[in-house]
């Protein structure tokens, strides 16, 4: 009996602490339904009505359909390119034991050692020299390049543990190298590939820094994070529109997190400790 009470008490403490940790998010959510005066006067109270008017107004006033389209475009193209190219490179690099192969692997994982902040200025310069500042394709090319190192590194580590015998059998049976890769190797890489895809989806969807540097103030090519940042980070913020905007920008990440929790938590641990 005493044991039971102790456990329950601990569970309650856990629960209270967790709620407290999420308090900022909860406050944002309940205040997003209030007019500004109510925010100041009834900050901790639930809103008087759960009307979606401000949400709808923010949606149209700040061009959310376009922003979501842009963000989706960046995320989908980046993730598809990574999912196609990273496993190909990682597989071939792991299976080829030449000096040139080691050099290529070095070139790909070098950025994991060097902080992004040390080459972001020159990266912006390079993109500007190619006349791609403010363009969608400039941002996509950069995003793919930035996501590639960790993806190749993680898959490379995985391929080393995939038995080579299967491939050799298929080769003896006369299958072409491309066929061996797509029909035999790629299906075996599915677990690590899922992790990579999930991590890069989150990273691209939430990206603000690269979008700021490459797209900057070009309203047509902004993603949702950059647009919200440009609109609302000024000194006097328009909270009546900002709060619904924040909530709407977070919903996709939160839904994605709930659906993919296992992959996200496991993947982040596996990837980040290494680099």
């Amino acid at each position, binding site marked *: 009996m005493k044991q039971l009470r102790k*456990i329950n008490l601990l569970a309650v*403490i*856990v*629960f209270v602490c*967790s709620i407290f*940790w*999420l308090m*900022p998010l909860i*406050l*944002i959510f309940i*205040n997003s339904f209030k007019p500004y005066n109510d*925010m*100041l006067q009834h*900050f901790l109270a639930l809103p008087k009505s759960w009307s979606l008017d401000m949400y709808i107004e923010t949606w149209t006033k700040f061009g959310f359909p376009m922003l979501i389209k842009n963000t989706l475009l960046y995320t989908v193209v980046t993730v598809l390119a990574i999912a196609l190219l990273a496993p*190909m*490179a990682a597989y*071939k690099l792991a299976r080829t034991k030449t000096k*040139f192969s080691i050099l290529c692997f070095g*070139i*790909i994982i*070098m*950025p994991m*050692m*060097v*902080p992004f*902040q*040390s*080459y972001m*200025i*020159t*990266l912006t*310069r*390079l993109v500007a020299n190619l006349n791609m500042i403010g363009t969608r394709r400039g941002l996509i*090319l950069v995003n793919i*390049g930035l996501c*590639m*190192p960790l993806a190749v590194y993680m898959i490379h580590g995985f391929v080393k543990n995939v038995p080579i015998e299967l491939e050799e059998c298929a080769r003896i049976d006369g299958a072409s190298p491309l066929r061996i890769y797509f029909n035999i190797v790629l299906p075996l890489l599915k677990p690590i590939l899922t992790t990579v895809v999930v991590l890069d989806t989150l990273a691209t969807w*939430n*990206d*603000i*820094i690269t979008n700021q540097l490459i797209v900057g103030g070009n309203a047509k090519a902004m993603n949702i*994070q950059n647009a*919200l*940042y440009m609109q*609302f980070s000024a000194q006097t*913020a328009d909270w009546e529109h*900002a*709060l619904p905007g*924040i909530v709407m*920008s*977070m919903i996709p*990440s939160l839904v*994605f*997190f*709930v659906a993919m929790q296992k992959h*996200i*938590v496991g993947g*982040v*641990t596996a990837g980040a*400790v290494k680099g």
Partner: protein
Amino acid sequence: MNKKKWKDFFLFALFVFPAVAFVLFATDVPFMMNLYYSVFDWNGIGKSMTFVGLGNFVKIFTNDTLFWKGVKFTLKFAVFYVIIVNIISLVVALIMSKERKSSSIGRAFYYVPYIISLTAISLIWKFIFGAGFEALYNITGWEFFNWSWVGTPKLAFWVVVIMAVWQNVGFYMVNYIAGIIAVPKDLIEAAKIDGANNFQVFLKITVPMIMPAVSICMLTALTFAFKLFDIIMVFTKGGPANSTVSVAYNIYKEAFVNNKYGLATAKSLVFVFFVLIVTAIQLKVTKSREVEA
């Protein structure tokens, strides 16, 4: 034979070169460009570039108070961030490592700030420290809520620490939980049969067994702190009165605000050198753990 060699190379190129090309474009080439620009005096826009040799580096080490102010801020941030984030996440991990339904939900709660975008995080805290604190002051009358948190240099430092900790605790917590779960159960049971109480078990078994996780989390936190940039760029912009300018943000400002492009790239190289030292230690520690495991 020769034909086979060419075929092999062609296949290698087909598989590897696209990835290499993207990485070269987005990271390696820009990094190398640092070496080139760092020996010039250039505003980043005009055509006139003056060769100054190591002049930029000399300037950094002899005549650049803002840069060294940034170094001081970054080191101070690193000390507080590493300690606070590790203590909180270790405590949370110890509570949450028990297999029970409430703790798996609790873990998710702590993890949420890690997966939302920095824009949301910075706007959320802007709202809390601004309108939120104003409202709380009206309710409670506590002077604490009436302080100008974002506007005072001393308090702005803590705003940055609070945001960074809030955002990242979930990440370290997950790493600690992985370490705690890996502690062999039979070891704990044996100790309990021998009469050890919970506190002794924690001190004599859990703590030594999770030391690898502790060292890795500390070093990861340290590299994060050294590279501190995103929160500064999105939230404080280095203000008030340059009190929250981190090294990385100082470099960014030098290039894009002060238009001292050559100097900024030289600073980038100095910055890389310091971060590489920490990364090298980190890799060594991670490697040694892998051998053990």
